[in-house]
Every structure is written in structure tokens, then in C-alpha cells.
């Protein structure tokens, strides 16, 4: 029962991560990209929560604690991302990452 649950939950988080990655790869809109990053991050957070729950003995930091820290981190990251979006938008009037390809080769 537990085995199955871990596997299925892992499958869920892996799917989340895949969605996040898919978003990062395909979206050109910076805001959507940020959301995709968040989704990916959440997959990791979710994992920590599961594993903390299923693991009998936990050494060191507990999964829940890590999850909380990561939520904070994700927020910070997004904040930074937004700052960059704003600057980009002010500078170019576009938040499409496809427009920012002057640096290449």
C-alpha cells in the first residue's frame, strides 16, 4: 500500500516537474515562464512533504521544514524574476523572450 502510494505520488510530482519543464521550454512570455518555474519548484516541494511523511526515520532537517524554506525561496526567486520582467518591459516594451536574442553564437 505504502509502496504504491509513494510511487503514485512520485508520479504526480514528476508530472508536475514535467509540466514545469514543458512550460519553460515552450513559453515565450516571461510571466508564463515564471509560472512554469513555480510549478517545477512545487514539484520538488511536494516531494519533500511526501517523503517526510512516508519515511519512518528522518535524519537532520525534516522534509516539512525544507518545504517551508523552499516555498520562501520560490517566492524570492519569482520576485527577482518579476524585477527582471519589469526592467525588460520598460526597456523594450516586450516581455517575450523570443525578442531578446541579440547575444548569440
Amino acid at each position, binding site marked *: 500500500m505504502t509502496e504504491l502510494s509513494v510511487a503514485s505520488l512520485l508520479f504526480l510530482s514528476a508530472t508536475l516537474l514535467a509540466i514545469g519543464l514543458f512550460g519553460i521550454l515552450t513559453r515565450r512570455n516571461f510571466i508564463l515562464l515564471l509560472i512554469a518555474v513555480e510549478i517545477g519548484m512545487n514539484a520538488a516541494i511536494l516531494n519533500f512533504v511526501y517523503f517526510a511523511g512516508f519515511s519512518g526515520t528522518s535524519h537532520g532537517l525534516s522534509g516539512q521544514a525544507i518545504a517551508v524554506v523552499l516555498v520562501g525561496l520560490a517566492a524570492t526567486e519569482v520576485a527577482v524574476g518579476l524585477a527582471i520582467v519589469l526592467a525588460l518591459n520598460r526597456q523594450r516594451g516586450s516581455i517575450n*523572450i523570443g525578442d531578446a536574442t541579440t547575444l548569440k553564437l
Partner: protein
Amino acid sequence: MAVSFVLVGLLGDRLKKLEHGGWVAVGFAGAAMVVAVLVVAAEMLHPSHYSDQSFTWLQLPGSPGAFPNGFSLVIGVLVDPISALMLLVVTVVGFLVMLYSIGYMHADRGLPRYYAELSLFLTAMTGLVVSDNLLEFFLFWELVGVCSYFLIGFYYEKPSAASAAKEAFLVTRVGDVLFLLGIFIYFTIDATAGGGLGWAASGFKFVNGSTPFLAGAMGGSSTLQTVAGLMMLAGAAGKSAQFPLHTWLPDAMEGPTTVSALIHAATMVAAGVYLLVVASLFLGFTPDDRLAIVAVGGFTTFFAATMAVVHPDIKRVIAYSTISQLGYMVLAVGAGFAMVGMYHLFTHAFFKALLFLAAGSVIHAVGTQDLFKMGGLRRPMRVTAAAFAIGALSLSGIPPFAGFFSKDDVLSSVYTAAQSHPAYWPFLILAYATVFLTAYYIFRAFFLAFSGDKTRDPTLPHPHEAPWVMRLPLYILSGLAIVAGVFPFVPSFASLLSIGANGNVPPVFGTTDLILSALSVGLGAAGILLAQALWGNGRVYVLAPESALQPVRTILLNRYYMKAGYDELGLRLVYGGSRIADFFERYVIDGTIRGIERLAARLSGTLRQGQTGLVSDYASYVVAGVVGLLILLLFVAPFVLASVGGP
């Protein structure tokens, strides 16, 4: 020690090029001659091997492996009867030619160079003669070669002279290289002969006391020794212009006539024969070697004579004659009578130098070498004509001139040898045939040049007799060409020529089989008469165009196409090969390199296309990397590791 002084003295005069330096050079050459005469006198009184090794050139300590006794190269001096004799030849002719040059070269530029090179030549030649070991011999051998190179190319602005010099160097180089191989082989023979202080350890010396170092190996018939002997022959063939390395000598006539007389008639070319003599005395030949030597000598004798028959150039006629006569000497050595070869060398040096100097006197007077332009020179140039005639008679082997005695000895020694070696017969016959040819061609030249009333080419300058510095050598050499033949009848001189202790049958001076002598004299006389008949009194014999002999004449004039063949070989094969190599070098090797370069550049360019500037692409690389890693770690690696079996 006395002879060391000669060496030093001659080296010294290279430095002093006062004015033209000619007289200085003459002086030193004279001094050398005096010393040589003294040496000969000493040897005549006490024939002995005097050896002095004063200077070690390079030395290796012995080691357990290949050279248990070590290895050294030494510069030393060996005076013995043959070297004394040779020394006499070299210095006497050298001195006379130097003297002659004062007059002959009078108007030329670059005289200091001339005398310096000539002096260097004499130095090297005397050095060669008194070498006490094979390596030293080789060293001086090469040096005389390079002097010859310089002197042939003396008129270096003439392309033909520069080309002839190159040719001479190259062709003799072939022989030299093989000679060097021969030295190596003797080195091995020594190592295998073994025992005691080795030949190599004592510096390749010829003699140990008075027995040859390689005495133990002499008289053997191993393949190695045969090959070594053949290599000596090859070296000699290069230097002495024997078939098939003879082509350079006629072309060497591009040099001043004095040079031709000294180097390309009397001394340097004789060094090849001298090498064979020395080798036969100190290193030993196998029977197979002997046959090869006889074959080369005998064939060359005839072969060169045929070419002399038709040639229009006075110097080249004499040059072919030189080759032919050197063939006689080689023949004698091969027949096992090394000292007979020496004897012929001795007389030949005088009469051939005489012929050349006389020819030089003619050329000096009329400014051309073309026999067909000359004619009627007897009256204005009596001394020269007489000198030429003496030389020619001597060459033709007419008694009592010097050439008669020595040539007769050669023929009889070959005859003697042929008794026990039937394979020698054909070459004896060739040798006799050559006696006839020799007499014919040299008198053809004589009559063309001197007989008749006037020169055939009226544009030539009015001929005049040579100045005294040129005449004096002619007188002396004429005298020698007459009397040198009888020297061996002086007992003490004969003792010089009879060093036969080393496995050589003593020569048979003068004790001629009268029938053989008569045959040879008869053939010579017949040749002279034929020449007189065809060319005497200013006549010019013209071969009918439709004559069956015409193609023969063409072949002879073109020297059997051998030189052309060699040139073709050099040009097509060697140079062509080198062009191909060069092409390969530039396009294949370097092309490959450039190809790799271009490939790298293209790879770089292609890879850079991946740097699109679009961040999504970068992210996709990351994701692809992750997927790849997952596959590698989770799926591929287990199987790989399982198949490898783990560490």
C-alpha cells in the same frame, strides 16, 4: 717525419698568396719534390715500412659489446717503397705543372685561387700517398676529389665547366660511397678475425710493423671479403674513371689544361689504381675480386680507346687515352701483379703529363682544342711537336720509350695470370687490341695537329712556341718519358717495385716473353702506320656518309650514349622522383593538415549554430542533458557494467 714537413709546408703556402702566389707555390712544390727525391733515395737504400702515428683523430674506449678493443681513427704517416714511388710521381709532376702554369695561366683571372687550390691538391695528394690507414686514405681521397671539383670548375662562369665539375664530383661520389661501405666491411672482417689489438682499435692501419693488419683474413675467399674488395674496386673505378663510372673524366677537360695534366692524367686519377695496389698489398683480394678487376680494367681499356678514335677534341682524345691506360693498370693489379700496375702508373704519369702539357702548349698557341682546326703546327712549334711525339711514342709502346717497358710488363703479367685463370683471356685480347687503337688515335691526333703546312682554320692566331717556363717542363718530362722505363733495371730502384712479400707474385720486369713484346710493338707500329696513312701530311680522312661505319662513328662520338643515359637517369628518375615527393609533400601531407584544420573550423562553426541566443533553446539543452543522464545512469550503465563485469 720528413714527409710530415712536406704536408705542413704545402699547407703553409695556401696562406701566402703573394701577388699571384704562383712562384711561392712553385717553390713549395719544388721543396716537396726535393724531399720526395730524398725519401725515394732513402727507400732505395733501405726498403722498409716506416710508420709514424703522431695524431689521434678520435678515439673510443673499448666496451664489452661490439668494440672490445675500442675504436680509433688516427692520422699517421706510412712511408714504404710504393708510397715513396708514388710520392715521387706526384711531386715531380706537380712541380713541373706548377712551373708550366706560370706561363700557361699567365693571363687568367683568379690566379691566387688557382695556385691555392693546386697547392691544396698537392697537399691532399701527398697526404693520400703517405696515409698509413684506410680512413686517412679516404679522407685525403675525398679532399683530392673536392680539389678536382674546384679545379675543373675553375672557369666557373662557363656553364659547361660548372656542370662538368658537378658531374665529376657526383660520379666519383658514387664510387666514394661504395668505398666507404668497403671500409665498413673490412671493419667487420677485422671484428670477426678478432684477437689481439684490432685493426679498428689501432685506427684502421694498414700495417702492423711490416705485416698487414688484416693478414689473417687475406687470401680468404669469403663473400664478405669479396664484397669488400668489390667496393674497393668501385671506389677506384670512380676515381680512376673506369667503366661504368668513366663518364666524368672527358668532361673534366673543361678545367685548365695544366689541371688536366696534373690531376686528370698523372696523379689523382691514378689514386684509384694506387688504392687497388694498396688494397691488394694490405687488405687482400679474393679470386672473384681479381676477376672483376681484370674485367673492369680490360674492358675499360678497350672501351675508352674506341671512343678516342673519333674524337675531334685534342684534350679529350688524351683523356680517353688516360682512361684506357688506367685500365691497363687496373688490369695488371687484377692479374695479381700490383707492382706492374704501379710501374705503368709511374711511366704513364710522365708521358701523359707530357702529352697534356704539349697539348696545352698547342692550345695556348692556337686558342682552340679542335683538332680539325689545327694543322701544320710542327714548324712553328718544334719543341712542342717533338714533345708530343715522344709522349705519343711512349704511349704507343714503341721501344725504347718508357711506355713500352711498362705496357709490355702489363701485358705479359696478364698473360702469365691467364695461364692459370682462363677467364682472363678475353681481356688480354682486348688489351692487345687496344695497343693498336692507342697507337692509331694518338698519332691521328698528332698528325692532325702537327702535320701539313698550315692551320686548317685560317681565323686562328698565328702559332708561336711557348715561353721557357712552359718549355722547361716539356724538356724534363720528355726526358723522363724516354728513360723512366729503364729505371727498374737499376737494381736499387727495382727493389722499390719488388715488394712482393705480401702474397703478390714478384713482377716480371723486362724479362719479357719476346713474342708477346713483338706482338705488342707490331700492333703499335701498325696503328701508327694506319694513322699516317689516313691522316699523315695534313690529310683529313673523311668517312663516306653512306659508309657502314658511320653509325659506329656516331655511337662513339656520343660516347655510347652513356652520359646521356646517366643524365636521363638523373633527370627522369631521381629528379622526377623528387618532384613527385615534393608534390606529395605539399599537397598530400600538408593537404591533410589543412583538411583537418578546415574540419575543425567547420565543426566549430556548426556547433556555434547551437548558440542561438534563444534562452528556450538553452533550457532545452539542459533538459536534454538531464534526460540523457537519467537514461545513462538508470538504463545504460547497468547493462554496460554488467557486461564489463565490474571492477
